[in-house]
């Protein structure tokens, strides 16, 4: 049987009565329930302030009248090189995307390397070149950084942290809490490509057509969407934990219900096949170049058309809507006409994929 109750009367007691694990598990970084609990109960409860509270992809700050978005992310992916990208492209695009999900125009990044002793110089150079190309493609500048090296065996080749700031234009109010009943939920394209591309390397899966990560900067796509119509309430990129986790987080944050339709969710054939074999549900698999948008019903068609006119949104589709039933829960209409709950991810589906 697992651990017993923890004495909460002791103020030094760890505030995680629910998880009952003595040590950190991989699942605590997985983007699902355990991650969520760790962040809410340990971090957010300690660093209590209203800027942190929304627990969105980035924080929205007002400095001398200008609204800034500020975000940070660390990249610990294994393997560091994969079809469609590498840890460097991820590190740049991931942070650019987090800023875009706040509605901000990304401007400046910082970058900190933690490098394991013994990493081939060539590999490091490849990563650096990728990052440079990614910053150019996204239109951002890397303005400050740090480098540390740790003993062999104490770091998995290379870990990268990037932080970023961007400016939020006036009139743009994007946050998970702004989801409203009736909002249409738009998905920008096929899901699970990134996670499966990673697993294909790890598991030695051979594909007839190689599946590539969808890693891409979404800032231009977001700008196109905002230009089409400002009535966009929520933007999120479904990274670790996949579409399912993000929808659950938003449903919980805004205390609304979400319904989606299985048949409408775009998944490529090869990715579907890989998910079958590996026993994964594509809804829980990571994406690195896709977004979900909650848009007012009146604005939905405009925004959708704008997305489809952009290469990164050409397969954009409305997959569901916000309802006032079952607040906090995501329900999916299944292929055969039944319905099921799309729960938050439990445990770990894929270790260290972003």
């Amino acid at each position: 049987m697992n651990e017993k109750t923890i004495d909460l009367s002791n103020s030094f007691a760890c505030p995680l009565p629910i998880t009952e694990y003595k040590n950190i598990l991989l699942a605590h970084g997985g983007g699902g329930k355990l991650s969520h609990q760790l962040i809410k109960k340990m971090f957010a409860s300690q660093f209590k302030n209203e800027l942190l509270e929304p627990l969105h992809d980035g924080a929205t700050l007002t400095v001398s009248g200008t609204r800034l978005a500020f975000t940070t992310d660390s990249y610990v992916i294994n393997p560091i090189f994969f079809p469609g990208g590498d840890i460097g492209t991820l590190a740049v695009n991931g942070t650019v995307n987090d800023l875009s999900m706040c509605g901000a125009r990304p401007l400046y990044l910082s970058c900190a390397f933690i490098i394991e002793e013994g990493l081939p110089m060539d590999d490091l150079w490849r990563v650096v070149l990728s990052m440079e190309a990614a910053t150019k493609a996204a239109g951002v500048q890397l303005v400050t950084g740090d480098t540390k090296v740790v003993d062999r065996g104490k770091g998995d080749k290379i870990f990268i942290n990037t932080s970023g700031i961007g400016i939020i234009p006036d009139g743009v109010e994007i946050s998970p809490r702004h989801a409203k009943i009736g909002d249409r939920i738009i998905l920008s394209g096929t899901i699970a490509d990134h996670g499966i591309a990673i697993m294909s390397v790890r598991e030695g899966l051979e594909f007839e057509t190689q599946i590539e990560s969808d890693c891409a900067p979404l800032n231009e796509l977001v700008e196109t969407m905002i230009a089409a119509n400002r009535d966009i309430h929520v933007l999120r990129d479904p990274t670790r934990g996949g579409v399912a986790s993000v929808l659950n987080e938003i449903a919980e944050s805004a205390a609304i219900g979400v319904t989606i339709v299985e048949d409408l969710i775009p998944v490529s054939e090869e990715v579907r096949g890989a998910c079958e074999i590996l026993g994964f549900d594509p809804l829980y698999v990571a994406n690195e170049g896709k977004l979900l948008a909650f848009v007012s019903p009146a604005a939905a068609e405009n925004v959708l058309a704008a997305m489809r006119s952009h290469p990164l949104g050409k397969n954009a589709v409305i997959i569901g809507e916000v309802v006032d039933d079952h607040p906090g829960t995501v329900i999916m209409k299944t292929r055969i006409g039944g319905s099921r709950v799309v729960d938050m991810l439990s445990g770990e589906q894929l270790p260290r994929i972003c």
Partner: protein
Amino acid sequence: MKYVDEYRNAASAEKLMKEIRHVVTHAWTIMEICGGQTHTIVKSGIDDLLPSDLTLVHGPGCPVCVTPLELIDKAVAIASRSDIIFTSFGDMLRVPGSEKDLLAVKAAGGDVRIVYSPLDAVKLAQQNPEKKIVFFAVGFETTAPANALSVWQAKQLGLKNFSILCSHVLVPPAMEAILSSHANRVQGFLAAGHVCTVMGYEEYIPLASKYRVPIVITGFEPIDILQGILMTVRQLEEGRAEVENQYARVVRREGNRSAQELMQNVFEITDRSWRGIGIIPKSGYRLRDEFAAFDAECIFDVAAIHTQESPLCIAGQVMQGFKKPHDCSAFGIQCTPEHPLGAPMVSSEGACAAYFHYGKIRF
């Protein structure tokens, strides 16, 4: 995907559903044996769409769920040793033991690895001669041939550092245990399609006849389940009690003879304890004496383990169809996938996990 997509077709599902509604005139209780079938049912929402006269109860066909607590504790003890690489299918890692699970052993530094095939474990043994590799061989008859072949292969290769911790269970004795219980309310069965792929279905004929229950060998896709239910209900309405094969594209009456031969060479039948249910005679496999060198229970002397189940867990009753997961007072409260009190909440084939993940809104 061919031979998958056709069995998820919405139009076909609608036809089968319509036919089921047309045929049902009485209330019937049907049990699907295999946890994989339970998951399909709840995940595609079939149970919600069936006429209310039909009650589906869930069977013990989840090998992870029925692995005895003592064996989990043994696995934890072995995996905690520093000279061991402990390998297992993913699900077993989160099954609660008396004190902890294998995932906790991993987090504390134990070398616990997930493999997708027992042959991967054999390969690890070849690649790591200085370590002892143990594979947690859990499964029904479906998995037994693969595990048998791996042990056979290890013997051929002369490996001295490979062993399995065996927890194989058999379906027909479990069905008989359910049917012979005076509390049984199951009137028809969807038998486990992949188990029968290996074993064939001859051994179900005497069961159907002795207990007067229809047994339909059923596959795992939504269309298979619906067709299996339709065939069972037709039998019930017509007063028949036969063995029928819905999964005919894969299952033959005699099963896979090569697989059966291999299993007989490596395993022998033994009594087994089913977690939550108790000892069912002649309901499992153990390695034959000539393979003792590959039997982790013989090799590793693990001290007497005091097992302790959660007093709240009613897994045994759920797996025999007496209760549903949401009938349990701890369901979703003290018992969730993050801190399970019993195995059915963490196994990918566990009924409690299926209800928790896909169905909790309805209960």
